[in-house]
């Protein structure tokens, strides 16, 4: 029953760029498979019984016929759920689920690395949606034993985020919204990539996450993917997901653009900027290309990654992209 989205297991690598038709065909196939499976399960069983599905970790999950109460176990999932129009079905979120604003008023079930089992159970969810990177496996197992279905996803890159949106759309029976959302995302991405694919010069970008020590993002991150798609070169690319740099190393790398994440808000950003201004030999400083970006837009596995992409593209290739219409 291993057909949904799990690229490595099926051995079929879905191409990074998919157009609307292909998505539609693929999703229809998925949907019909679920229905078949549900039909198969419901032979001899109560018509209201759950259907079975396999999540992205290969786990068998029993999804109830009606999913009315969802608990999101990560801020990225919260965003996806609301973007799919299923926000009214979300009954509990984790602590840092700050988008959309409505999510902040929902009951909190702890942070995504330290979930409060009791609060989750008290919310009586029909379904919990978890992320592999962060949610402790032990809590997922406990929820399982308590009879609460937990569907785990692992959106590691932009494509996987889109697949996840479609999967969740299938789970919640909102496929049209899911397809629309993914289609919109694809359109916006294409608008960027169509211009950046053919640039002659790809500026070097240093993306600064940490302040002290200075930390950047390696190849296996959203940040790297977005920088690459926006036509830049991520100077921190490499196997280490969050490598550390000394000032010397950065001086040697000579970035053309500095992008600093908004963990360093307000006054701290100013301090960082004035720090870098002490080194005018760096091209980014000379041309005053030191910018701030909201970290939620570039490291959260949500539809807003596209927004982050657009901002990055504007910062990296200002001549190609005017201010957003």
């Amino acid at each position, binding site marked *: 029953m291993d057909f949904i989205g799990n690229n490595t297991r099926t051995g079929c690598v879905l191409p990074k760029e998919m157009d609307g038709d292909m998505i539609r065909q693929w999703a229809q196939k998925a949907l019909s498979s679920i229905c078949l499976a549900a039909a198969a399960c419901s032979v001899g069983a109560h018509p209201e019984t759950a259907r079975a599905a396999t999540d992205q970790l290969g786990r068998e999950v029993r999804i109830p016929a009606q999913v009315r109460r969802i608990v999101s176990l990560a801020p990225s999932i919260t965003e996806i759920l609301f973007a799919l129009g299923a926000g009214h079905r979300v009954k509990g979120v984790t602590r840092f689920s700050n988008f959309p604003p409505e999510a902040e008023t929902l009951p909190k079930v702890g942070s995504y690395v*330290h979930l*409060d089992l*009791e*609060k989750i*159970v*008290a919310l009586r969810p029909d379904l919990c949606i978890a992320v592999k990177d962060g949610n402790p496996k032990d809590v997922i*197992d406990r929820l399982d034993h308590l009879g609460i279905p937990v569907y785990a996803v692992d959106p590691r890159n932009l494509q996987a985020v889109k697949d996840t949106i479609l999967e969740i759309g299938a789970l919640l029976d909102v496929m049209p919204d899911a397809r629309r959302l993914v289609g919109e995302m694809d359109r916006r991405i294409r608008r960027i990539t169509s211009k950046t694919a053919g640039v002659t010069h790809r500026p070097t970008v240093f993306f600064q996450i940490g302040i002290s020590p200075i930390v950047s993002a390696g190849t296996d991150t959203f940040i790297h993917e977005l920088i690459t798609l926006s036509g830049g070169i991520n100077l921190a690319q490499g196997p280490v997901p969050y490598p550390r740099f000394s000032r010397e190393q950065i001086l040697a790398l000579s970035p053309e653009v500095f992008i600093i994440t908004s963990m360093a808000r307000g006054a701290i950003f100013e301090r960082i900027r004035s720090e870098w201004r002490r080194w005018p030999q760096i091209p980014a400083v000379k041309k005053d290309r030191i910018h701030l970006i909201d970290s939620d837009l570039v490291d959260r596995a949500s539809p807003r990654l596209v927004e982050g992409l657009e901002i990055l593209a504007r910062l990296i290739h200002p001549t190609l992209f005017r201010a957003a219409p």
Partner: protein
Amino acid sequence: MIAPRASLPRRILFVTLFFGAALCIAGVFGLSLGSSEGAFSEMLRAVMGQETADPMIGAIIWKIRLPRVLMAALVGGTLALGGLVFQALLRNPLAEPYILGISGGSAIGAIIGILMGLSRFPGVSLFAFLGSLSTLAVILLMASGKGMLKKDALLLSGVMINAFCGAVIMFLVSMTQDARLHNIIFWLMGDLSLIGLPQVGILAILLLPCFVLLFYLSHTMNLLLLGKEMAQTMGVNIVAATLTLLGVTSFTVSITVSHCGLLGFVGLVMPHLLRLALGADHRVLVPACLFGGGTYMILCDLLARSLPDQGEIPVGVITAMIGAPVFIFLLIQSKK
């Protein structure tokens, strides 16, 4: 203050009943209160075994809270008792259960397990346990020979090993950037939120005989406090007694820590508090620490999970926030 005239068996009985009752009451509170909203009276009825309107209450109480409360009782008792025994063995009132490298070794083991992506049970806990055994072995080797019975040799080795491990831990932590960092931090601070009934069962089976053994050796601890020379001339086999106390206590603390992380302050504060109230006789202090430590931990865990609205505070923070002022107060008192 317990009447000094009362005979010893009666004092032990009184202490056991008193603190045992406190433990049970704390347990009832622990089961009836928590982070979910539910009328306290409803919860209480469920705990007492009566039917409730909402079946989910039963699930919360028996499946989520019960393992935590039981584990808190076991952990609190183990750590308080561990502190008591190490204070007697090392004849040092500042000794606490982690002093012989258990904190350093188990933390390194746990961090390695977490970095490898293992789940808490049995993966991380196994690594933590092996880690603490390794450091204990190193300490015993370092302090071996005739020097082993010199209390300062053990203490010094323990302090050095813990310091070294601390450096390794900080290095490992600094190298970690992702979500596993949070898991590591929570482990280091002590965390009862992942405990299930199977873990409680295993620990109960392993720990209860150890508690009985430690009570059996409680008078021996009294004698050891007169100094190893006098104890020997009063019939105590110093080597056997020291090794047994060391081994059993290290085992209980290690196995507890490997499941729950480094919960602090119980092992240091509880023995002092109880010694102040009940005197220095270990035959009374062992049951008092056992039940008193358990009660304290249940209450701290209850506060940790029910106080904040956003999600629980690590219970190690609560034990420290309550424990530290109490300890300072005790110090001031003892100077008078």
